[in-house]
């Protein structure tokens, strides 16, 4: 069994009010060095068998159609 991790982040030009709220809390908690926070999602996709190029392409399609909304989000895949 293998695991493919899909990280989904809002595109840089899309406002991330949740990240900004976290940034505000960082300041209040004394983490002054923190200058920016962006919040994203991490999906752990378990795969039966080996992860070849074909299987990875499947997961990429899954990410494009369901896990991420390409209108507002970017995603990255990696095999763990």
């Amino acid at each position, binding site marked *: 069994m293998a695991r493919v991790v899909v990280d989904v982040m*809002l595109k840089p030009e*899309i*406002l991330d*009010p*949740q990240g900004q*709220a976290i940034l505000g809390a960082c300041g209040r908690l004394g983490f002054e060095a923190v200058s920016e926070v962006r919040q994203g999602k991490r999906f752990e996709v378990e795969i039966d068998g080996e992860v070849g190029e074909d299987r990875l392409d499947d997961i990429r399609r899954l990410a494009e159609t*369901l*896990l991420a*909304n390409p*209108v*507002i989000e970017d995603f990255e895949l990696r095999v763990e």
Partner: protein
Amino acid sequence: MTARVGVVTFPGSLDDRDAARAVRIAGAEPVALWHGDADLKGVDAVILPGGFSYGDYLRCGAIARFAPIMAELVPPARSGELPVLGICNGFQILCESHLLPGALTRNRSLHFINRDQRLRIESAGTAWTNRYLPGQEILVVLKSGEGNYVAAPETLDELERSGRVVARYVGTAPNGSQRDIAGISNEHGNIVGLMPHPEHAVEELTGPSVDGLGFFTSLVARVTEASPAPAGTG
């Protein structure tokens, strides 16, 4: 003929009954449609109601997009045949389905907004707004946490240029929507997505106005005009 308007219920839909009620008040017949049935029951138009389909899991509307009923709805909607109104969560579903451009994201303030809201109808050329006058201001209900409309600048320019901005918030958009956009349509004008709720403004007793009724009477007018009256009836 009486227009038959389908109202889809997804798990987590909240406003399907209010939408059906608005349809009835406008003089049409509401038809209950179920997300799990790949059957539009021959309706003349469809409303995707507000609520939290599939608990808003993943992204609002992201799971509902793949419901069996959507596989039936998307082709005739995309071709311009089937009028579809997506209200609130329904608007989110239409964007996730790529029937409308852009996306709806978390309100800029992070707060859920629940209030009476003035809108300006910008386009009276759609299946759902032909009973309004361009520039007419209406008072309806806004209640959403993820109503912040975003799209690429060139998409926004194209929407403006082609008259597909259907409604704007009067004053500043309370949720941060780009160019104060509250609703848009597709290029055929049969699909409209609207973040605020016209179906909650159709009766004096329960709404802030009856201004929302125009969306439903517009559809009735569209369906009635599109179909010739049967012979022998007046």
